[in-house]
């Protein structure tokens, strides 16, 4: 009986402890990021794998490295890629249906020329399925044009083999991405920061 009473008094103290913890958090600043006004750091987005895009060409950025070998099309588990071969090796149409894509990276990793990479598009919003079918060649031209206006140093020479983070050729080439590209080439626990 006495023990039961004592246990209950101790129990009441545990409630006070709980209240003090939530009270402390009540007064501490909020942890969330308020999206339209604030956004997460680019550092975090640099490793995010968004929808795939064509890598900028080596000589002419607007020229894709794709040779229409159809490896990516065969590898894709979701059957979301469609590459139409033109007269030469270069493709004439490159359609990508993002609504079927599971972002597994099979296409990126199986591409022999490194023509594909992941973008970092986090804020992609559409209102219809049709808008999720991307024409990647047009997208490449657009990015090449933006890049020509504001040239930025990138280290996107990595072939699309192993590293997902090696896709540093996007519009926002963050330093960490370049760092991982170096890490992929010569892995070590502490790669030299680019």
């Amino acid at each position, binding site marked *: 009986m006495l023990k039961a009473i004592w246990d*209950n008094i101790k129990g009441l103290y545990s*409630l006070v402890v*709980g209240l003090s913890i*939530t*009270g402390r958090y*009540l007064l501490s600043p*909020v942890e969330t990021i308020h999206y339209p006004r604030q956004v997460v750091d680019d550092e975090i987005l640099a490793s995010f794998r968004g929808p795939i895009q064509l890598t900028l060409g080596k000589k002419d950025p607007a020229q894709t490295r794709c040779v229409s070998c159809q490896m990516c099309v065969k590898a894709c588990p979701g059957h979301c890629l469609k590459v139409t071969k033109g007269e030469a090796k270069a493709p004439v149409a490159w359609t990508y249906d993002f609504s079927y894509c599971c972002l597994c990276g099979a296409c990126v990793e199986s591409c022999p020329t490194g023509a594909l990479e992941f973008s970092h598009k986090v804020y992609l919003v559409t209102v219809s399925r049709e808008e999720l079918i991307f024409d990647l060649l047009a997208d490449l031209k657009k990015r090449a044009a933006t890049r020509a206006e504001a040239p930025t140093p990138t280290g996107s020479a990595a072939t699309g083999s192993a590293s997902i983070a090696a896709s540093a050729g996007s519009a926002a080439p963050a330093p960490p991405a370049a760092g991982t590209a170096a890490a992929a080439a010569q892995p070590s626990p502490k790669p030299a920061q680019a």
Partner: protein
Amino acid sequence: MDLSLAIFVQIIVAALLVIGLMVGNAVVMVYMERKVAGFIQRRPGPYEVGPWGTLQALCDSMKLLAKQLYRPGNVDIILYYLAPILAFFPVLLLFLPIPFGPYLTALNVNEGIILILAFAGLGVLSNLLAGWSSNNKYSLLGAARAVSQTVAYEIPMILALLAVVFQCGSMDLKNVTEQQGAWPWEWNVLTQPLAFFIYVVSLVGETNRAPFDLPEAESELAAGFHTEYSGMGFALFFLSEYANMLLVSLVAAVFFLGGYKGPVADGFWWIFIKAYAIMFFLVWIRWTFPRVRFDQLLNINWKWLLPLSLLNLWLTAIIVKLLI
């Protein structure tokens, strides 16, 4: 004749004011609840509507008003619609005897606390009817829980208040207030700490708030007795829940915290500050603790609160007798 007409007009005016108070209270409480919950959980809470989200509660109530009254099949129609109304209107009456200020009482009655406690018991009837009529097993279970819980928690609540009544020798809320002073050390909470503790605990049980929110335990019973209500029916339950909270907090303020009396100047602001402090505490514990189980809830009541309140009453009676 003239006098009774004056009282009648006074009551009508008071009732309108009280309805305004209830709606205003719900708006404030919804905002406070969501803001406090947000900050405890380290997020901003309502943010978009109005400055700092202050208009969120208003918009919510607009939405509820505009919603279609959806009625599930096979309900008992009369009881189904009666229940929310029955939940709302008795609470109106309960605000009448509360002394908000030295001269601000809608209805001066000698036995104000009796009136409040008697009509507070009506609230549970609406829960029962809502659960019974909505033809849903979750509602039925919620209603059964609501009845046994409210009935049980009324007893220690009454006994705790009775100790104060013994001490003050009056059931008139104004009289009880007048006997306390302006400063905290002159309040009844110092002479009756155990009664205050019991009252606050049973207040949580009486108003069905977490951690004693068994009738609407959402992880077990979806939403308990008001599972099947939408739109205005739900809004009325909501209003009456917050009005009930305000009421019991006001009673606590009157009986234990000196009512409208306070440092500097007496007035209705003091009683509201005190009542909302208690309600803030209710919100705080809601977002801190897990829910107790149903048998534990009744055990707390019958095995702990009731003997303790009886003991308190007995001690009070002896001390009062000895001192007088």
